[in-house]
């Protein structure tokens, strides 16, 4: 009995000590976790991917009600500016019709010239349509979660586009989920071209709604309204995906408005251009080969 009593006394003392230092222990534990995360980034990435995979079904379940709420909010706002919006759209429609004519003419011309030059088309791109099930928008990052993952062929570095233009690139991929890093994120650096002058530049995000254009040569040639497209340097994206337009040129700083409206994203397309470059090479071994265009995997749209 004495042994048992002693044991209980010791156990009680240990408990008291643990209770007294519980706060310190917990804080130290949190700090150790942070240090581990800093030291072993691969482990953290794995943990992130697992967490995303676990969370994405739940998020998908709440995505629909959230989408309804968003639509209601957007509707309310649109009612306020219906008349101006209509006028603007009519004007834009007229302008676009003119462009359409021009595009048709150019397309025909292009086809003829290609035939003449025996031009070889680049690898056919395949699309995976994804729903945005989660936002990663907070004070420190701009991104989103998608409901598609490795299983349907999503791989890190692939481009994420909307109808308007480039939205971002895939940063992390789970089995059934993926995280997009938007071009507006502070960690985003994108090699681009100014469409009019073919001048190269780097487009950087800073977590605001405007992007910062860092020119490699001179600022002088840039005008407001210039379209910015991807340049294909660095090998992650092909040439010519529209990204945004220049809205502000001050001394040394050029601001670009992205074409994608990040506040209304609901569906995006993950595009695999079959270009494997710097970004993809880190995980290139594990990324599955994309199915050739025209053989859609079940449950996705491929164009």
């Amino acid at each position, binding site marked *: 009995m004495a042994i048992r009593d002693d044991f209980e006394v010791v156990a009680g003392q240990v408990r008291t000590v643990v209770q007294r230092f519980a706060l310190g222990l917990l804080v130290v534990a949190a700090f150790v*976790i942070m240090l581990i995360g800093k030291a072993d980034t691969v482990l953290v990435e794995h*943990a992130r991917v697992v967490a995303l995979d676990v969370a994405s079904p739940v*998020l998908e379940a709440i995505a629909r009600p959230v989408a309804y709420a968003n639509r209601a909010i957007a509707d309310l706002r649109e009612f306020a500016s219906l008349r101006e919006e209509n006028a603007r759209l009519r004007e834009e429609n007229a302008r676009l019709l003119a462009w359409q004519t021009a595009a048709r003419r150019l397309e025909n011309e292009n086809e003829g010239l290609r035939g003449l030059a025996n031009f070889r088309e680049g690898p056919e791109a395949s699309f995976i349509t994804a729903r945005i099930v*989660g936002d990663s928008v907070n004070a420190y990052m701009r991104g989103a979660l998608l409901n598609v993952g490795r299983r349907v062929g999503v791989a890190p570095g692939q481009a994420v586009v909307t109808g308007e233009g480039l939205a971002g690139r895939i940063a992390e991929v789970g089995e059934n989920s993926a995280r997009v890093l938007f071009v507006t994120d502070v960690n985003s650096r994108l090699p681009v071209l100014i469409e009019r002058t073919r001048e190269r530049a780097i487009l950087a995000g800073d977590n605001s709604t405007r992007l910062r254009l860092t020119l490699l040569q001179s600022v002088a040639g840039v005008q407001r309204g210039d379209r910015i497209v991807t340049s294909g340097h660095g090998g992650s994206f092909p040439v010519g995906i529209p990204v945004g337009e220049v809205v502000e040129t001050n001394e040394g700083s050029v601001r670009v408005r992205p074409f994608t409206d990040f506040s209304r994203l609901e569906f995006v397309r993950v595009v695999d251009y079959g270009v494997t470059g710097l970004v993809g090479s880190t995980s290139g071994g594990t990324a599955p080969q994309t199915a050739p265009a025209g053989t859609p995997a079940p449950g996705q749209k491929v164009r």
Partner: protein
Amino acid sequence: MRADGVLAVLDRWGRAALPGSVLLFFVLLTLAPLRAPYLSDTLPLLPALVVFQFSLATPERLPGPLLLAMGVLLDLLLGGPGAPVGVSAMGFVLIRAAVVANRRYLVGVPFLFQWFGFCILMFGFVALVWAFTALWTWTAIDPVPAIMQYLVVAVTYPLLAPLLARVRARDPLNVPELSRGTAQPGETTS
């Protein structure tokens, strides 16, 4: 220990699990793609609000290890490349400790005092996260979005706190009358 029926046992389990479940819900809600202006900015801070609110009455139902796990989960779900994992966990634990240590100023006092306490603690939390994120990524992060986030969540508190308090009020063990305003540091309600 009295002999309990199944329902009573379920009831007890439910009560014990409630704060953790609400916290988990808000951690997951952090990622919900809500596009309401300003409101969606506050989502990442709502779990901290839940920790604060439940620590007022039933801190023993948010044990440290649970807070640690929830904080790590939140950081894993939220963070971008390079963001520190575990900083929210540290923040949660500190919020709970601060609330428990200052119960006499926070429990059973007029709502304005609670709000004031919340604002102080939340400022500490935001500053902690901001500082560690800046330190860990070694970049000068613009503090303005974080401050905006803080201001909005401070304004949101009076809207959300009564709701959470209602959930809590179902508990008959909730803040006994005697201890109102006189709770000693470290004293809990069960």
